[in-house]
């Protein structure tokens, strides 16, 4: 089964893909889960994976999770023993072996943003250290470089590692950037392009499918932002449960409007590429624009800066980014976003014309009036 088929997969089929990997009888895959500037939300998100759940996936896929700080338990082996871990060893031994020794690294998952900045009185990268190795305190930035150069696949999991996310947002003082940008700055070449699975948090089911794809020996089909096309090709707005309301010109005036489209109140669905509406979240329970009220743009490259914020400003009123230092990813994102806005501006003007001809008028929400005044 090729990647093309993965493209059309939704959650009910994830299990089948993963069992296909198992049938191939691949050997143990050595995986390192490295946490940088993050809040462990992507790890907690992995606990929400279902069909298969995390434990089943690890066992079925034949993954040896050699290091995963938040969940590692040497006594109940999920791979630590095969990584050279023994009961007498130190907690960072598997990480040490992988980064500084000869232990293999097949897949490196990075949760969180690398921080390149230098605190006053400190050294570059000191905003995040991951332990002592051979007597030296090692920064997250350094260990990332070592592991990324060695790994067959690097997966930047979640918004912070894919695009910098909140730690890299306007006002940050730590020099946080995306994994791609950090490796570029450090001139570290990876064996294959970094796979970005953005989102705050990353969706666990998409993550497992991507992992399964990799373990089948296929390189996932990535877009220009390094995202698997399977999950980031459509816009939330395109498949929103309230899309019909938008097409009819029924715009919500308050956040608890049971029917209308939340565009005017700030929904970022029109500029956010994701499969949230297709696969939903938490075992298919719901997703942001289904539960309500709106999409916050948490998978878009500049989240939480414009154009995803102001979160309560309609996307067309969001100021464009001018004079902001952006990396290549950011530049692409701005270009892409501008294009999308243009498309939706066209659609929207058509809708307004329709409304006017039918005598309806999209009303302005109080929040929007407030914004206009301030």
């Amino acid at each position: 089964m090729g990647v093309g088929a993965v493209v059309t997969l939704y959650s009910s089929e994830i299990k089948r893909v993963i069992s296909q990997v198992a049938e191939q009888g691949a050997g143990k895959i050595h995986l390192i889960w490295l946490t940088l500037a993050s809040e462990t939300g992507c790890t907690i998100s992995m606990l929400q994976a279902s069909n298969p759940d995390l434990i089943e996936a690890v066992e079925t896929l034949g993954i040896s999770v050699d290091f995963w700080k938040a969940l590692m338990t040497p006594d109940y082996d999920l791979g630590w023993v095969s990584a050279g871990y023994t009961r007498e060893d130190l907690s960072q031994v598997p990480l040490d072996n992988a980064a500084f020794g000869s232990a293999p690294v097949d897949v490196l998952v990075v949760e969180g943003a690398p921080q390149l900045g230098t605190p006053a009185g400190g050294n570059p990268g000191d905003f995040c250290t991951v332990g002592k190795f051979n007597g030296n305190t090692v920064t997250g930035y350094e260990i990332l470089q070592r592991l990324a150069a060695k790994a067959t696949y690097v997966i930047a999991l979640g918004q912070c590692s894919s695009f910098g996310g909140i730690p890299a947002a306007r006002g940050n003082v730590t020099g946080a950037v995306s994994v791609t940008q950090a490796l570029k700055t450090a001139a570290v070449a990876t064996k294959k392009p970094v796979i970005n699975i953005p989102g705050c948090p990353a969706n666990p089911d998409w993550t497992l499918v991507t992992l399964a794809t990799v373990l089948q020996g296929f390189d996932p089909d990535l877009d220009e932002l390094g995202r698997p096309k399977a999950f980031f090709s459509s816009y939330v707005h395109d498949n929103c449960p309230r899309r019909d309301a938008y097409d009819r010109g029924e715009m919500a005036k308050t956040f608890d409007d049971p029917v209308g489209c939340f565009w005017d109140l700030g929904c970022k669905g029109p500029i956010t590429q994701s499969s949230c509406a297709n696969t939903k979240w938490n075992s298919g329970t719901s997703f942001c624009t289904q539960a309500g009220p709106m999409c916050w743009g948490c998978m878009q490259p500049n989240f939480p800066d414009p154009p995803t914020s102001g979160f309560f400003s309609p996307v067309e009123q969001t100021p464009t980014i001018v004079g902001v230092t952006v990396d290549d990813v950011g530049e692409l994102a701005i270009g892409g976003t501008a294009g999308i806005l243009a498309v939706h501006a066209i659609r929207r003007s058509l809708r307004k014309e329709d409304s006017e001809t039918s005598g309806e008028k999209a009303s302005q929400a109080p929040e929007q009036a407030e914004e206009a005044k301030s």
Partner: protein
Amino acid sequence: MTRSVIIDPVTRIEGKLSLELSVDETSNAVVSAKAAGSLFRGFETIVLNRDPRDAAPILSAICGVCYCDHHIASVRAVENAAGMTDYSADYSTEQTSIPMNAVLGRNLVLGADWTYSHMVHILALAGPDYHLYGLLDALKPNYAVSGYADLLRQFIIPAQQYINQAITLWGGKTPHPRAIVPGGNPVRPTPDVVEQTRARIAQARALTDQILPTVWNYLTANATLLGGLGQGPGNFISMGAFPDPTSADGTSNMQLLIPRGVVRYPNTTPDPFDPGRITEDTSLSWYNQPTPEAVVGEQTPVPDMSGSQAYTWAKAPRYDGMICESGPLARECISGIYPKLGQVLHVAMPDVAGLPFNARGSAFDRMTAEAMELLALVGSANTIQNLEFLGEPLNLSPVDLLNSLGLPQAGLLESWLDGMKVDQPSYNPSYRNPGNAEGIGLGEAPRGSLLHWISVKNSKVANYQVLAPTTWNASPGGPLEGALLGTPVGQTGTDDDLRPTAYVVRSFNLCMACAVHAIDARGNDRYLRMG
């Protein structure tokens, strides 16, 4: 002579923590301890110059475990600044213009967040250190569980997933449902959402009913051992949680199910809480701030590692200069539920003096208080399994225990669901940007007290301060470091050498990302072994 034991990283906690212990060679007891957080992200400057409402969707990402708590605390701070919510002069009650449904909806989402967090902490994170509480043996007669992975897959992962699904119904996804906005909760309690939520809670309850009695019996059988470890400062702080809109007159003067207060050891009666009395000291932290500052109105200090004494990104919050412990034990002592639990035990076993086992707190008291909170939130239908204390049968089932404590059998989560007026509004659209104002959001997270403070100028965020639970507990010179003193550290070369240390560390349920939102930790060379 002392020897040094360095644990870095401490595994199975949220964030990055390291511990450096000095152990006396003669007594084999810890004589000094340093707990350090080794990640700084700087949220308080990232939210500056933004729309005040934009703070919450960003600050929820301070923590990937207690996301609802930070989100709601920020929304409450903004509502306070906008005049939508207010506190009585002594902070004991609240009034709000958001609808009753929204108050209950926030209680539900917060309580659900605590529920899943306690499940994950007690069972998945701390469990291995506590021999999985004997659960494998207890479950084997009825379930195919041969190891930790089976326990995770059959009980822990599904139980916490059901609770997360319940939150998802009200917020779209977890972690980080961002649906709640100033003015209320946009998701209305429709019959469908209410019944789906009720079903998820019931599924989680059915699983915890299989597990919690065994956890309780393990902890109480080891009460003498665990009660002798991890003595805290005896000062407890609670910033209050779960306003009750059915108390007093609707959403005015709402009483809090978990009251605000501060207990000053050796007193056991709480004093009123006043946020103005909290300061943050950075003399042992990597910041350039010469003297302690009041947290309300504090200017965010600049990171600076040049101080020779400093070893952590965590600051040191103090109340009237006091070290305070925060968390389930603190709030249950302040609400009175924990002493009441002690009275129940005393009736059943007159030899038991009461609870807390150690008046200043202990590993036993913290773990038991957390398990008690989980039971109170999710409820129980278990009338069969007998609870024990010190290995003696109590002739009490979990349901009996809830009844004797005056707690709802179906749990607090379901009681809030029951209180909602179906299909009625849960959002008040009258929020307006206050222009120039200050606001405070007080609450409790799974791990303890949470404070958000915002200053709005020219309609933008001009200053923002967050004080998180683990900052109290893992602060330099704080409760965790103090509780480690005297802990025995063996030299047998087995897993048991560091087990007492693990008991103490786990009992605080640390969350380092919260503590240094601002924290994760730094430390060094020995892995915290779990049995």
